[in-house]
């Protein structure tokens, strides 16, 4: 080898020591946020905001600013309705009917939206043809799909899933497309020199690199799934379909029972937020944190 003329290094140990010193100096220490700070900075503010909303609500009722309970029930009334539903054992049934529909619909949307997004991102003709349609569908409120879905598919679960899919698939596909578009060209070049071309390149480089955009799309896709489902349940409420949260709201309206309407609204809101907090936010944080994209503090 041509390198054989290199003399053995006398200062090899020096170099190792120097390098270890540099490494230690240049590496920023990372520490976990203490629990106390986490509580005061992350948990306390939303709890305070919620308390404030409840206080204003209670004040509106207590000081008789809104007198008619058919317009605005007291927080306690809504609580009683919720409590009764729990005691009767129907509360979890309402929630499960909607959540199972929502999650199954979302999984279907995931299975359709992912390959669609990949195709649109990779095939130039499809991108030109389909991308504007996807963006357009995203801005169309999915309630608009309920009447045609009822006419095409009838009043059944299939119609619900169709509306959920039309709401969520564009978000998921669009998220993946913009995720792939934002992959730095350097990664693709580096991948190619390592031998990741064609499908290997997609699997090892493009897809993992696009993950942050994809997860953002999933998060939005879930929000759209849930909204579409509620719209479908409210408009197409039919006794044979079982009572989900949307039907509960519609039943409350038909019975002019404002406490029941509020019960349904509170539940819809809670479930939507809970699934985002329990599933999608941790997923997003994990993706960003492992890439060093999340600023701590």
């Amino acid at each position, binding site marked *: *080898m*041509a*390198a*054989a*003329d*290199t*003399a053995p*290094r006398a*200062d*090899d140990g020096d*170099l*190792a020591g*120097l*390098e*270890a010193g*540099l*490494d230690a100096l*240049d*590496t920023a220490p*990372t520490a976990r946020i203490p629990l106390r700070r986490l509580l005061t900075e992350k948990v306390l503010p939303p709890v305070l905001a919620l308390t404030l909303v409840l206080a204003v609500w209670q004040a509106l009722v207590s000081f008789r600013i809104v007198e008619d309970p058919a317009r605005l029930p007291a927080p306690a009334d809504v609580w009683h309705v919720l409590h009764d539903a729990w005691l009767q054992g129907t509360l979890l049934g309402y929630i499960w009917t909607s959540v199972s529909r929502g999650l199954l619909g979302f999984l279907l949307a995931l299975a359709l939206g992912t390959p669609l997004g990949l195709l649109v991102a990779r095939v130039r003709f499809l991108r030109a043809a389909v991308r504007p349609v996807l963006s357009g569908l995203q801005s169309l409120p999915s309630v608009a799909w309920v009447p045609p879905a009822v006419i095409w598919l009838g009043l059944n679960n299939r119609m619900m899933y169709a509306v959920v899919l039309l709401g969520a698939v564009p978000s998921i596909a669009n998220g993946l497309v913009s995720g792939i578009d934002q992959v730095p060209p*350097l*990664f693709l*070049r*580096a991948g*190619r*020199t*390592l*031998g*990741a*071309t*064609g499908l*290997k390149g997609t699997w*090892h*480089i493009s897809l*993992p*690199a696009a*993950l942050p955009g994809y997860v953002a799309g999933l998060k939005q896709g879930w929000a759209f799934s849930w909204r579409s489902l509620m719209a479908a349940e409210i408009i197409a409420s039919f006794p044979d379909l079982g009572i989900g949260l949307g039907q509960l709201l519609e039943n409350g309206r038909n019975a002019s029972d404002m406490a029941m309407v509020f019960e349904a609204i509170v539940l819809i809101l809670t479930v939507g937020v809970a699934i985002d907090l329990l599933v999608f936010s941790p997923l997003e944080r994990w993706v960003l944190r*492992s*890439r*060093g*994209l999340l600023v701590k503090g």
Partner: protein
Amino acid sequence: MTVTTPLAQAATTAAATAHTGATAWAARIEHVSKSFPGPAGQQLVLDDISLDIAPGEFITLLGASGCGKSTLLNLVAGLDRPTAGSVTTDGRPALMFQEHALFPWLTAGRNIELALRLRGVPRGRRRERAEELLELVRLKGAHGKRLHELSGGMRQRVALARALAQDSRLLLMDEPFAALDAITRDVLHDELTRVWAETGVCVLFVTHNVREAVRLAQRVVLLSSRPGRIARQWTVGIPQPRRIEDAAVAELSVEITEELRGEIRRHGRR
């Protein structure tokens, strides 16, 4: 070695000879020209470059802006095709960039293992080999580290280990230390010289830093600008280990800098 890149067809023939026996060169650049479409028709970037690179040789390519250094490196890497002439390499070359270009969704060790996997190293041997390579660049124990936990110099060393994981006879480096601070760069020069001596890999190193070129190379190739042509070559006889502040390094650097400035001045007169 199998080369699947359609752009690296030239390399395929060389890979075939690599099976039958070692070639007399790590890369062969023969009358290579490259032009790109520009505002005023075709713009000639490289003009009739010929360069034979011996196995295990350390060459630095030096030139001012617009000399087509990076274009030439892309051609050798098989990422682009020459307009005229041919580039033949002994297998697929490894390439290191100015940015570390490591994948942030993988740990340091996994980045190296991905390179091994794409090369076809069986699963059971990847972990062990990755640890060896990390030890070679003196990052023992960094296997599970995330990139944002490493300093700039450490990332560039992981990138070096990943490039070495390709087990290529030719390592192309595109200004790999340009974005680092002077102290770290100095240490990495020592490190690269040591790794080069230990592995016997051939290095083609692009830089615009004359001192760096002289500090590292056995041969310095000066390119002229617009279009890029080989202006002059120097064989560097100063024994390794060298230091960037050595008098002999400084002396040759002065000579090469004069020549480089002369090349640059010609453009002002036009």
